[in-house]
């Protein structure tokens, strides 16, 4: 049975999903959703890299230390620091999502989103202090 489609209702065209997504009005929740996805994909990609990067443990001390030496540059520490930003956002926003699901958070999800950023930025700066105090 073919369904009648009202021509006045704009249907979602999958071929234009980027355009369609960009056209939506974005409030805090939409940004949380977008950033949660981006950070999630980045983190799983990093996890694969991480398993690969510690794999010289199989060959013993010399091989492992040679590999680790390439990761001890200041530039790499900056990359690690920003990786922590992704971890922080994903973890804190994940907690926000759980509160929305289980603790009536839908009534105060915008405040929670604000706390996500406030707590996130504070912990990000604290981690910078900890990480770079070992280097400089």
């Amino acid at each position, binding site marked *: 049975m073919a*369904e009648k489609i009202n021509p006045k209702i704009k249907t979602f065209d999958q071929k234009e999903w980027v355009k369609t997504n960009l056209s939506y009005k974005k409030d805090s929740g939409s940004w949380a959703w977008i950033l949660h996805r981006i950070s*999630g994909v980045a983190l*799983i990609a990093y*996890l694969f890299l991480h*398993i690969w990067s510690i794999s010289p443990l*199989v*060959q013993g001390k010399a091989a492992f230390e040679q590999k680790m030496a390439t990761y001890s540059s200041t530039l790499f520490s900056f990359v690690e620091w920003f990786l922590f930003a992704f971890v922080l956002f994903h*973890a804190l926003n994940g907690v926000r999502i759980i509160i929305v*699901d289980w603790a009536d958070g839908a009534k105060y999800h915008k405040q929670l989103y604000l706390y996500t950023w406030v707590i996130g930025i504070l912990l990000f700066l604290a981690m910078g202090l900890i*990480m770079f105090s070992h280097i400089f």
Partner: protein
Amino acid sequence: MFKYKSSKDTGAKSWIYQRISGIALVVFAIGHYILMHFQPEAGKTYEAVFARMQFSWYRIIDLTFVTLALYHGLNGIWGIFRDYDLKSGTKITIISALLIFGLAFLFWAYYIVFSIPYGKPMP
């Protein structure tokens, strides 16, 4: 227009597992960051890794961490694809690719942990 399409899976299990693994991962990640970044010398050297791996309970924690992280990550990727109305052939291809990739990396991680010997370190 967006009517429910023939699937017995409502996604409820996937939803609850994603939340449980998510909470566990936050706890593991806090421990991981404290261990690795408060004192890099005590966390990242071969000697430090070797010393930790002498405790079987630490190996269990490590392997639980990586298993949950891979599950959570790949289930999340699948969650993104599930937002779109894919053909069943495409779905099977994506799920197979995620499973093969995930299991390969999971076994690699297990292999790395179990390759570290008890007793005497490798040179």
